[in-house]
């Protein structure tokens, strides 16, 4: 049985044209008169064209592609965003914007949060359904990551939105928490909280704006910085922001 010299791996490498891993000349010589080897090789053949063709039917939705905050709009995105940020600075209502433009990377945590949120679609939170106990346990763990103790009732008390989940993310090695809500029509809105880096920071009043085209509210209590972002209902985000700020979440 001459074909025993060749392992399946070698034969597959031969079929794949990976000549570095197959004794091509020897295999081809053996194939001339070795019926068993031919049979083994046939058993390993597959229709690669059909395989590649089959994956063509798997395409991301236009919504998923459009949600990418980069690329096609990249050439104009940065200047537009910069203009937006310049406007924020001009309004002098942002929090810590001075340190943003000097010490920190231009892609500060707010931009990170906005880019993250821009990737969310209506479907992102659809499948998430947790019991109050699960939500409470999760919230306790998540809020502790930024040194807070947020009660589930504070989040479920908000009108017009349903609290869905909490996650710990990270920004430049610092924990950042995201508390996600969904409107009745499924629009995701996130409250993101990070500890202020500047120990001398004081309270900053809430400012509203559009970031990545999403309704946003930002404020600081001096200890933590907050961003509420999602959807295009400026009024809803403003009301939610005011409610969250007033309950000193």
């Amino acid at each position, binding site marked *: 049985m001459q074909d025993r010299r060749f*392992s*399946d*791996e070698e*034969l*597959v*490498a031969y*079929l*794949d044209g*990976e000549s570095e*891993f197959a004794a091509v000349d020897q295999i081809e010589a053996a194939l001339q008169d070795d019926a068993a080897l031919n049979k083994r090789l*046939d*058993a*390993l*053949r*597959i*229709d*690669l*064209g*059909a*395989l*590649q*063709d*089959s*994956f*063509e*039917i*798997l*395409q*991301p*939705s236009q919504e*998923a*592609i459009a*949600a*990418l905050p*980069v*690329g*096609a709009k*990249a050439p104009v995105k*940065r*200047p537009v965003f*910069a203009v937006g*940020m310049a406007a924020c600075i001009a309004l002098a209502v942002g929090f810590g914007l001075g340190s943003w*433009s000097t010490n920190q990377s*231009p892609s500060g945590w707010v931009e*990170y949060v906005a*880019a*993250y949120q821009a*990737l*969310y*679609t209506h*479907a*992102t939170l*659809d*499948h998430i359904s947790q019991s109050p106990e699960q939500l409470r346990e999760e919230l306790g763990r998540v809020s502790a990551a930024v040194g807070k103790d947020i009660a589930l009732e504070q989040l479920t008390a908000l009108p017009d939105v349903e609290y869905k989940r909490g996650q710990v993310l990270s920004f430049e090695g610092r924990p950042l928490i995201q508390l996600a809500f969904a409107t009745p029509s499924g629009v995701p809105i996130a409250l993101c909280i990070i500890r202020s880096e500047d120990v001398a920071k004081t309270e900053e009043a809430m400012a509203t704006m559009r970031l990545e085209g999403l309704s946003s509210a930002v404020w600081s209590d001096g200890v933590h910085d907050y961003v509420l972002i999602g959807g295009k209902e400026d009024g809803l985000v403003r009301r939610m922001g005011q409610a969250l700020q007033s309950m000193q979440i």
Partner: protein
Amino acid sequence: MLSRWRKQSAEEEVEAGLPEVFPRIWRYAFSLTGSRDGADDLAQAACLRAMEQASKFRSGTHLDRWLFRITHNLWISEIRKERVRKKGGMPMVDAADIPDPKQDPERDYDRQEVLKSVLDLPEAQRVTVFLVYIEGYSYKAAAEILDIPLATVMSRLATARANLGRKFRDQKDVSRAR
């Protein structure tokens, strides 16, 4: 502010290249998660991770391979673990998520069957088949993306080919096989 961004060429390269690679990353994410929702979540998480770590990308190297590696690592290190924890095991591929036949029902039916055959493979074989046979990566590149030895790539492909060969022959002739 803008001048500082211009200096970050690696980050710009990642951002500029992401949209082109995204559909491929999404298909890979589908192969890993077995559903459209799962693919959306994983592909988007991978893009975010790539943006976060863009400064680590070595300008001029293969962005696609870097993104596949990030997607794979994210799946292994976080998302798969979380799924197993929450759902008590890995989900099977949701056939309902494979698009329905449209223009050419017969051809699309064949394509769905072939696709399902691949998606039904065990994960280790499935990802290797995807990278080598769908994406066309060399054994060496696939081994680097998956962070496994070359011999493992070879043994996975040999096993996968034997499995697929059996299934394909059940479904149709192998006139185009190689």
